[in-house]
């Protein structure tokens, strides 16, 4: 599963992995905004931004080819529109679309590949994202793998039972039944989680262990990188 690979990448160790998630999120936003506002003719500027990302991938110790490949998820979409723009007589627009959307995907991938999601969520909460959303995201991520596995099993089981049925209708309703079953199991699982929470004296509010620490290195990282990006942009 895709997110399992990302999970593994985020568990490694490097200078980038060790940075406070808040620092990485801020730098990401600065990068994305700078990239978005960079005019497409400024080839050198975009080149510098790309080089910075490449350097970051190496610094993070992530597999270079793997990261580039993973960021290519956006390419089908951007290449299609790029082709359309190019055929409509706007090659520069096409180029801008493809390269900038690829680079922004790469930047996001860098942050998520060097920060385990729960830590990223803590960082987002510290930066002001509402607690309820962060908690729901945390639970979603926790059970994503479990429930996806269940869905996979159901697919296999359904395929086994299907035999050579050619008729669409029964297969459609069988799939709907499987989905309903998955829904019911998920719902019951949520009730089980709730019971387990109650059994351990849940008071109605989650408390955290709160382990984020913003250090001098993080501050330096944020300031230096942001300044660099903005200065390059303002050329």
């Amino acid at each position, binding site marked *: 599963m895709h997110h399992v690979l990302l999970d593994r990448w985020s568990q490694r160790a490097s200078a980038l992995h060790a940075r406070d998630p808040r620092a990485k999120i801020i730098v990401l936003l600065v990068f994305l905004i700078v990239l978005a506002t960079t005019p497409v003719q400024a080839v050198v500027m975009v080149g510098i931004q790309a080089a910075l990302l490449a350097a970051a991938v190496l610094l993070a110790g992530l597999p270079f080819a793997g990261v580039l490949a993973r960021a290519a998820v956006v390419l089908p979409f951007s290449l299609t529109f790029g082709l359309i723009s190019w055929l409509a007589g706007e090659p520069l627009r096409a180029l801008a679309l493809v390269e900038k959307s690829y680079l922004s995907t790469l930047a996001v991938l860098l942050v998520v590949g060097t920060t385990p999601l729960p830590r990223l969520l803590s960082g987002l909460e510290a930066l002001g994202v509402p607690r309820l959303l962060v908690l729901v995201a945390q639970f979603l991520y926790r059970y994503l793998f479990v429930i996806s596995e269940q869905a996979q099993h159901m697919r296999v089981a359904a395929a086994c039972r299907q035999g050579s049925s050619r008729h669409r209708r029964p297969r459609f309703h069988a799939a709907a039944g499987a989905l309903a079953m998955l829904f019911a199991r998920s719902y019951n699982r949520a009730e089980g989680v709730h019971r387990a929470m*109650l059994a351990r*004296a849940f008071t109605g509010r989650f408390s955290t262990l709160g382990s984020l620490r913003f250090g001098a290195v993080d501050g330096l990282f944020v300031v230096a990188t942001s300044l660099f990006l903005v200065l390059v942009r303002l050329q």
Partner: protein
Amino acid sequence: MTAVIQVRDLHFRYEDGTQALEAVNFTLNAGETVAVFGANGSGKTTFVLQLNGILCGEGSVSVCGLPVKKETLAAVRSKIGMVFQDADEQLFMPTVLEDVAFGPLNQGLAPEQATTRAKLALEQAGLSHTLNKAPYHLSAGEKRRVALAGVLAMQPEILVLDEPTTFLDPPAQRNLLDLLRDLRQAKLIVTHNTRFAAALANRAVFFEKGKLVADGPVEEIVQRYDWAYSPLAADFRYSAQRRF
């Protein structure tokens, strides 16, 4: 012997009207381990959920002298720790440490104290190496023990385990057995695994259709209700031989 659980004349009816528990009387004494047997749907889990107030029936239930009521729930749940059958439902935090610290935090401990308690509990369960792991990286046996650690971290006086050996392979079962043997708390073990129960408990109760119909030494109850696996396995072999 002090009674840590006292149940008198407990009745419970589900919303749809089915009588799930009827006139149940039960006592658990300090340091005792009692096995709970019964067919699926006989009310074992329903009974156990009454002890920490997750379900609320009529009659009197008291834990460590506290009547189980809305006002006392927080205190009761600190005294009686429950480990459920599905470990995935119990390990709902992103990391093992955060999950085991969940209980202590709810008890009002400060983050540092909660972390210390959690680490101690994990050490007790032999899982200190899993501190920062995500739950889905653990094996079934490890998950079960983390769930137990999560309960032990709250320092309860009573442990309730609902079908603790499900999904565990024999080595994991032995591991769990050794761990439970070393714990001083009074224990209530709901299980079909009579061997496991016999290794830990001296006493057993039997549920049938919502009623607690028997209470006595483990071996006697197993004999009386023919509750061991072995005779059934022998039957199966015999009928299979007959067919082929």
